[in-house]
């Protein structure tokens, strides 16, 4: 974990420089981010609301990464999951709330899951590069979203922001207790813990790690490589699909372009920083959720543009990728063992 932590620290330093160039005191900015993200129970709730979908979309990159596949179709899987969940939820909107939520979850999982399974199938059947195909499928997903909410699914009363018909208020995913945090957080936490148990402790994860470590050894051991790959892709997409379901069922109440708000892309970053491990994802998603939550403060208090937070995300991305390529080049990284 030394490297990702170091990378985040370096990215913070670079971000401080960036702020300094904008004429802001970087320490004041950091203090404001910290306060806005973790300063009070109220702001921390905000952070958690953002962390929930990040945990789920991070799994979309993290699970296939253990197989050796680099999937970055998180945004697309989230959107398709959200759309499927909306359609399913609207179809059974008269049923009791527990039923509606279950059906929406299931539909989100199947939608997102199949979406990423397509990338897996293209790879295993035709050798199409999974990174490129999953990236391109993000654009297809967003185009499908725009088409549906402007056409077949459109609620005529949604004028300036074309949207689907709404899920009835009383059928939405409620907040926990008297907090502002909705039950989506539970979905996120449970999914990460399941992913951790599955990958680190279950026979399934053992097989996946064999394939990711050396596909030839996996084949020799009689593992059905393509089938395990497709199942993993499905689970990955399903996780992002749940994120889409949560955004609809707990936040927006309907499908519209707000679904593609960047949680998918941010999830890739979370997975990278957490080294694709289930439990660290919870932590990293919470941190990044906090940083996202502080975007408004930066705008209001420091007159920094909205995109400043994206600059920070981008910096972490670059530093992480860069530190990976440096790994092993310096004595510092080498042979530190018991």
């Amino acid at each position, binding site marked *: 974990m030394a490297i990702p932590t170091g990378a985040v620290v370096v990215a913070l330093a670079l971000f401080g420089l960036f702020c300094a160039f904008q004429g802001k005191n970087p320490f004041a900015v950091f203090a404001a981010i910290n306060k806005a993200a973790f300063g009070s129970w109220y702001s921390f709730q905000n952070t958690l609301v953002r962390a929930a979908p990040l945990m789920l979309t991070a799994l979309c990159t993290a699970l296939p990464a253990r197989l050796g596949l680099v999937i970055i179709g998180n945004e697309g899987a989230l959107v398709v999951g959200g759309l499927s969940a909306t359609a399913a939820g609207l179809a059974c909107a008269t049923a009791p709330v527990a039923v509606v939520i279950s059906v929406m979850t299931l539909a989100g999982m199947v939608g997102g899951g199949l979406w990423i399974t397509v990338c897996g199938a293209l790879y295993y059947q035709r050798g199409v590069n999974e990174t490129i195909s999953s990236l391109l499928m993000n654009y297809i997903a967003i185009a499908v979203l725009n088409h549906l909410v402007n056409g077949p699914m459109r609620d005529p009363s949604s004028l300036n922001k074309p949207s689907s018909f709404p899920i009835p208020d009383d059928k939405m995913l409620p907040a926990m207790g008297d907090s502002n945090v909705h039950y989506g957080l539970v979905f996120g936490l449970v999914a990460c813990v399941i992913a951790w148990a599955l990958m680190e402790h279950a026979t399934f994860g*053992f097989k996946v790690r064999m394939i990711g470590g050396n596909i*030839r*050894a996996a084949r*020799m*051991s*009689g593992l059905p490589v393509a089938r395990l790959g497709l199942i993993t892709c499905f689970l990955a997409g399903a996780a992002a699909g749940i994120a889409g379901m949560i955004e609809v069922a707990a936040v927006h109440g309907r499908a519209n372009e707000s679904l593609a708000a960047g949680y998918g892309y941010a999830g890739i970053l979370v997975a990278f920083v957490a080294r694709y491990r289930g439990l660290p994802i919870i932590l990293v998603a919470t941190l990044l959720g906090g940083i996202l939550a502080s975007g408004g403060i930066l705008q209001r208090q420091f007159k920094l543009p909205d995109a400043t937070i994206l600059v920070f995300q981008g910096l972490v991305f670059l530093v992480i990728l860069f530190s990976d390529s440096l790994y092993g080049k310096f004595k510092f990284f080498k042979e530190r063992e018991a």
Partner: protein
Amino acid sequence: MMTIPPVVRPAKPFDLELVKVTKRFGSFVANDQISLKVPAGTFHALLGENGAGKSTLVKCIMGFHQAEEGDILVHGHSREINSPYDAYQFGIGMVYQHFTLVPAMTVAENLVLSRPDTPGIINWKDEMARLREFMQTAPFKMDLDTPASELAAGQKQKVEILKQLYLDSKFLILDEPTSVLTPSEADEVLGLIRDKVKAGDLSVLLITHKFREVFGFCDEITVLRRGQFAGHGLVKDLTADDMAAMMMGGQRETKIVPKAVRERGPAGLEIKGLCANKDNGVPALTNLNLTVHEGEVVGIAGVSGNGQRELVEVLAGQRPATGGELVVHGASYHGTRAETAEHGFFLLPEEPLRNACVPQMSVAENIAFRSFDRPPMTRAGCLVSRAAIRSFAQDLITRFSVKTRSPETPIGDLSGGNVQRAVLARELGPGTARVLIAANPCFGLDFAAVESIHGQITEARNRGVAVLLVSEDLDELLALADRLLVISHGEFVYETTPAQADIKTIGHHMAGH
């Protein structure tokens, strides 16, 4: 006070000396105060059992590892070597056991790009002219325009050596360079290097397990045992037994497992009309037919590159067959996990780290590859029990004397020979094997390990296992096989038994006449 001269790339060989070099990995001492001297213009052999620390020691010379204690003297001056680039500056180069050529590039491109001082923009006309000039004086001829991917193993090894000569290395380290070569190729390559040493152009430090090469080409030896210095001497003063005694520490008894006389059992493995392609889509195997009976070892001899690799890969499920079928114990076989377990269909492939192990997983996990998903390794049906894996592996590690610091060490950190033993432990340890495919199972192993593997294979045969042994070592085949087939251009061209075998005739068929 003596001043240390600045580094200039040397124009002729120099003395290289290690003084009390110590290298630790954590608390484990891989090299304990090793001293070694290679005088200029000599051919020096570094011997030792698997895991003795030979590769680690030469990696210290190459700057891959940094020794914690001790000195490396280059031409009498103590030097810090912190990277392979430093080693290059001192005129030291190494040929690794694994190939480092870029497959998609031609021989010429590989040579030019290996130079650390290649300019950012390459003037190919000048470079090619220089290369041609270099090839005039090179010990072996090589077509410069062939892509590296089209070269056979022996040719690749030659290019690796050419690369070092092209880089003008004056001190050449060879880490088991001949394990991928046939004996005649090895003799050719080492002979040409020997000539350069004789001519005063080169010093060589050779790591090998083969006494034949020591007696044929080397002047001096240094022996390591369990990370410690275990002896040194001139080849002309020593016998093979002396060297073996230094390596093992004291005398040892040879234990040869006798082949039990037994009836040939029913068919274990049948290969029916098998066809398969090479990587580039050209047919490698055409309509191959073979039956291996229970309790028999069928040996396959041949020059490397005649379809052996493809055959083993098809059997291992690593390459699709384009035709034909496999039948095991009378039932059609597709290499699924259930089938491998049911039929006890196990393999000892060559290059075990590449074919049969996951380097970053632990030794224990690697040993459990065949059984991690069945009780007693599982809990609650779907969870892997680390404790069960550990105790299962611990037992096999002891029985097969795999030298590892702990069962949790990543298997990629083990020495080459110990990786092979770990795979052997996995495939033969539980005693459930009924069909065994072994491909060059003794590449890179010390003689004690070779003996133990040969013993294991014969024992398996005596137990009634159907064994298919693919090997480039004819002596091994003649010692172990009940029947011998020669493969050439993807077809069996000759069959004999070791009792009737005539080396000349076999050689004739291997050469494809």
